[in-house]
């Protein structure tokens, strides 16, 4: 492999078990996280990952640089450039013979090939491999690409189920990567590998981000297409997708999606509007108050009072009647109400409930007969393997989002 430099160990900066420094030509392009290898004792190889790259010259001070430009002439030219080099700090990630003594001064540093990098980063021998991306290293003719796999049992179970994606906000890369990974998961499991199966529930929380995931990308760049091929992932969109939009008569009040798109989806029976009915969903009333501070648990007491049909709530059959009934409880005076819950609490509860009821059109009395309106719990309970449900909550307010999210989680 290409030789790029030599190890430097000085009096003040020795090589250690964990890190080492090496010099390279100042024009060599190398990036943080690139893997390099160093010949070490007993014919072993130590692998390192680039952490920091510094450029050094023999200039004694900033003043020397200024003087070297004829005391501040920007256009000054010279026949000789100040002697300089790059030195790179790398972190040790392993050794082929488990020799962890520090690498020696003067040892030659080279780039690694794909097999070396796979080994160095522990990417070989992954069980239950699930393609999760490609690592690119080096530049120009030295460039290599290494497909990376996750162990799917640690990604979506049964061993574990967690993934953390970090990135700068606003670049739309975190969501894109999550979707790519989910696509990879669906493709793997749709082939019914080893009798394992997966279903997907997405919550769309921003704009129209996830409301067209079953549509083909006609503008997929060739470079991206090649990457998919290398990972053996098809460039098809998601299969078996259904969309669930919060109910509103004009559609656009409760979703950022294009109305015509939603209507088309509905015609194709790919999209539905979801509602919450009193009789079936009153038990979920507590989810409306999940984000409300309730240190004395009075909201919880009221919810419990209502859902158990205590007092006059046993006769309520719809959301409007519920509201009216709560209103009575917030009035002063001895009206035979439960005296353990104060009037002030009832007033707070009424205020919050009324606000939610008025803002959220999905609190309804009945579903339409055309099958275009559903209850989320019912739909989720009927989810099949490889189904992808996209539940849109982007345009709902914070309390309503919490309500729907909680309801979906309970259903799952």
């Amino acid at each position, binding site marked *: 492999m290409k030789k790029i430099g030599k190890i430097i160990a000085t009096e003040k900066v020795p090589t250690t078990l964990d890190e080492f420094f090496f010099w390279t030509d*100042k*024009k060599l392009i190398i990036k943080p996280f690139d893997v390099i290898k160093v010949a070490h004792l007993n014919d072993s190889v130590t692998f390192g990952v680039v952490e920091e790259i510094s450029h050094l010259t*023999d*200039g*004694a*001070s900033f*003043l*020397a*640089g200024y*003087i*070297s*430009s*004829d*005391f501040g002439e920007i256009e*000054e*030219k*010279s*026949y*000789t*450039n*100040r*002697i300089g080099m790059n030195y790179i700090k790398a972190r040790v990630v392993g050794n082929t013979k488990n020799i962890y003594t520090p690498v020696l001064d003067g040892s030659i540093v080279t780039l690694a090939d794909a097999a070396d990098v796979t080994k160095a980063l522990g990417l070989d021998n992954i069980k239950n491999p699930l393609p999760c991306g490609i690592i690119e290293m080096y530049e120009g003719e030295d460039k290599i690409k290494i497909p990376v796999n996750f162990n799917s049992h640690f990604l979506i179970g049964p061993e574990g189920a967690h993934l953390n994606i970090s990135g700068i906000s606003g670049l739309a890369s975190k969501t894109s990567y999550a979707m790519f990974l989910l696509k990879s998961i669906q493709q793997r499991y749709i082939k019914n590998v080893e009798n394992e199966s997966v279903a997907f529930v997405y919550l769309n929380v921003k704009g129209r981000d996830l409301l067209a995931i079953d549509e083909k990308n006609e503008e997929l760049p060739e470079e991206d297409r090649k990457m998919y091929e290398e990972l053996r992932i098809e460039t098809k969109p998601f299969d078996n997708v259904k969309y669930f939009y919060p109910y509103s008569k004009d559609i656009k009040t409760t979703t950022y999606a294009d109305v015509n798109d939603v209507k088309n989806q509905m015609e194709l029976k790919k999209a539905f509007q979801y509602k919450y009915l009193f009789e079936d969903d009153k038990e979920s009333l507590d989810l409306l108050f999940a984000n409300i501070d309730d240190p004395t648990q009075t909201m919880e007491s009221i919810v419990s009072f209502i859902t158990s049909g205590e007092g006059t709530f046993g006769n309520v059959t719809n959301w409007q009647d519920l509201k009216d009934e709560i209103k009575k409880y917030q009035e002063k005076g001895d009206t035979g109400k439960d005296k353990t819950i104060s009037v002030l609490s009832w007033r707070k509860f009424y205020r919050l409930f009324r606000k939610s009821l008025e803002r959220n059109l999905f609190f309804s009395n009945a579903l339409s007969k055309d099958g275009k309106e559903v209850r989320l719990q019912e739909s989720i309970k009927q989810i099949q393997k490889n189904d992808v449900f996209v539940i849109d909550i982007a345009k709902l307010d914070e309390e309503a989002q919490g309500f729907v999210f909680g309801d979906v989680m309970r259903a799952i």
Partner: protein
Amino acid sequence: MSKILEFIAEKTNGKCYQSFRYCADDEIRIPTLDYEDQKFTLVKNSYGETDTGLKTTKSIDNIAKRIINDAPLFHFFLDGSRRTYKVDDIEINRNVYPIIAGQIGVACCERKSSDQFKCADFERKLILSLPKIANSEPNIKPELFFNKLKEDVNKLSTLTKREIVFDKILSYASTKQDDNTKYEHLGIATIQDEMIDTEKKIVASLYDKGLINANRFLIKDGSLQYKPMKTGDFKELIKIKNHYKSVVGISKMFNPELCRDNTGKSNADKIAELRLFHRTPAYKYQSEMVGNVNFAIWYVRIRAKEHSASPFAGILKVEKILITDEEIENGLDSQEVDLITANIINERNPVCYGKDDRWANHLYPVYLTETYIKSKYLSDINFLNLF
């Protein structure tokens, strides 16, 4: 006592005293400035260049600016240095003489591009200098004796286990000297001569290979006025002067008292007053020491006076040997003098400010060459502990 000194004492019928060892460059320092030039004779009423009408200084600024984007004239940079040490005293025949050791480093670096500066040739030598009287076999030539002694010294385990080899054992005059001349100086002088010989050898090598020519000049750091030596392959400058067709000697430190115009009057004041990027006329000089060799010598200022710590800071002395009969007769072509000067001006940046007090007079490629040589020396402690 070390094995080397024991061995030398045995072979020279001498007795070593285990004297204190020290670096002679620091300890035997005569408090003068390190001028790089020597005494020489001005050839009166003659010119070192063809433009005899040039009576005052001349600006080379425009020429320097015009050629800055062209390929530079100077491609090679030669520098030599030595470190000397007194390692012991040896008594031979009831007289006590110093044993001098030295490290010589001579490098020629090539600038292949503005970013590529590589070593073209490098020699490092370890030398010992003993009094001539140390030759315990006067019936054979001293060179043979000391050469054999060197080979035997190099077989000692002290050196073989460190993979260190002495290149030569030289000898200095052991006859009684006047009060002003110390044996230490004589010993050091032999090592200095060896260094100069090595410099000449490298120039000869570059010339023979055709690496230096009219488009690829060499800057030699210091004066070209080599005194004739009694030994060595390049004893007399006059015989090797052709090697210096494309060589220019540049002195950072020169003795102002030796500055003369072509009438023989001192022009040190005019040199000190040189304006930025101006040069003096080139004058013809002949050095007593080097025999019938003529030089064109001129001065150029490469740094503004207001940025200089002394009147001569930023001024370089430039020497070129007059080779052909025409040059000897008429001096150098003034256009060539201008071109050489313009290239020197364009070598003024970057600077080694903060690293070397001589930064105002030090050309960066020469500084790099010097730094390269110094990086190749054994440390003083390492070297002294060989003995």
